[in-house]
């Protein structure tokens, strides 16, 4: 289960994806929101062309932890929603697939902001 070669692949691919993001920052001076959106769209496109699954099989978290995986989940959710529930599934499937992530982010952001004070600006 604990596979050292897989870990190496995860590290290398995940690092490479983040490095691509850094190249975008250096060459175009993109803000973080644009980087997130660019990679998210890339994930959706990869899923539309059925390229994401083979990459995921190769390096698991190396591609699902970057925001590309978020886009993939959304697109796959919509496609699978259509397969199981028909046309309505296109609307429900995408958000359902990422609901856990969004809910976790919102709830933890809410609780953390109530507990901690902002440190970045004084």
């Amino acid at each position, binding site marked *: *289960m604990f596979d050292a070669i897989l*870990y190496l692949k*995860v*590290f290398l691919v*995940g*690092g*490479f*994806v*983040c490095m*691509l*993001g*850094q*190249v975008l*920052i*250096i060459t175009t001076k993109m803000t*973080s*929101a644009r980087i*997130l*959106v660019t990679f*998210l*769209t890339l994930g959706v496109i990869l899923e*539309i062309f059925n390229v994401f699954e083979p990459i995921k099989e190769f390096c*698991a*978290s*190396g591609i*699902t*932890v*970057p*925001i590309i*995986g*978020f*886009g993939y989940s*959304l*697109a796959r959710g*919509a496609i699978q929603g259509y397969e199981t529930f028909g046309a309505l*599934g*296109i*609307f429900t*499937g*995408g*958000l359902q697939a*990422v609901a*856990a*992530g*969004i809910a*976790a*982010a*919102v709830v*933890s*952001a*809410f609780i*953390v*902001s109530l*507990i*901690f*004070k*902002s*440190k*970045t*600006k004084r």
Partner: protein
Amino acid sequence: MMLDTERNKHYNEYLQNKIPKTKPWPTLFHAFWVGGTICLLGEIIKDLLMFWFNDMTVDEAGVWELVILIVLASLLTGIGVYDKLGAYAGAGSIVPITGFSNSITSPALEFRREGIIFGLCAKMFVISGPVIVLGIVASIIAGIIHIII
């Protein structure tokens, strides 16, 4: 009109001097190893979950992995560590799902002083809003393309 372009030129020159000059190669390396480490951490969390809970499927563990990473990043943002990491790693801290979590927690923390309803809750999605909006739009487009093909 002429005055505007002249002023823009001066402003751009001023901006060029003000932007902190960083050498591109070290930041590429920083982004690479920090981003890779976050992904590796996720994979290890997934393996540990599947090791501890025998009846957990790979898909379930994958979702739990993301939830744990998101909560961790949110806590690290709260104690001010994630912003320091961001200054060091650049895209290495933005591109992983932890960056998405940071982009929600960070404005929530920042606007907490403007009140809970109109500060914290209203401004929470000020950075990550586009991600969710475009994500939903793109997913529906993906579904429609799937029907056509």
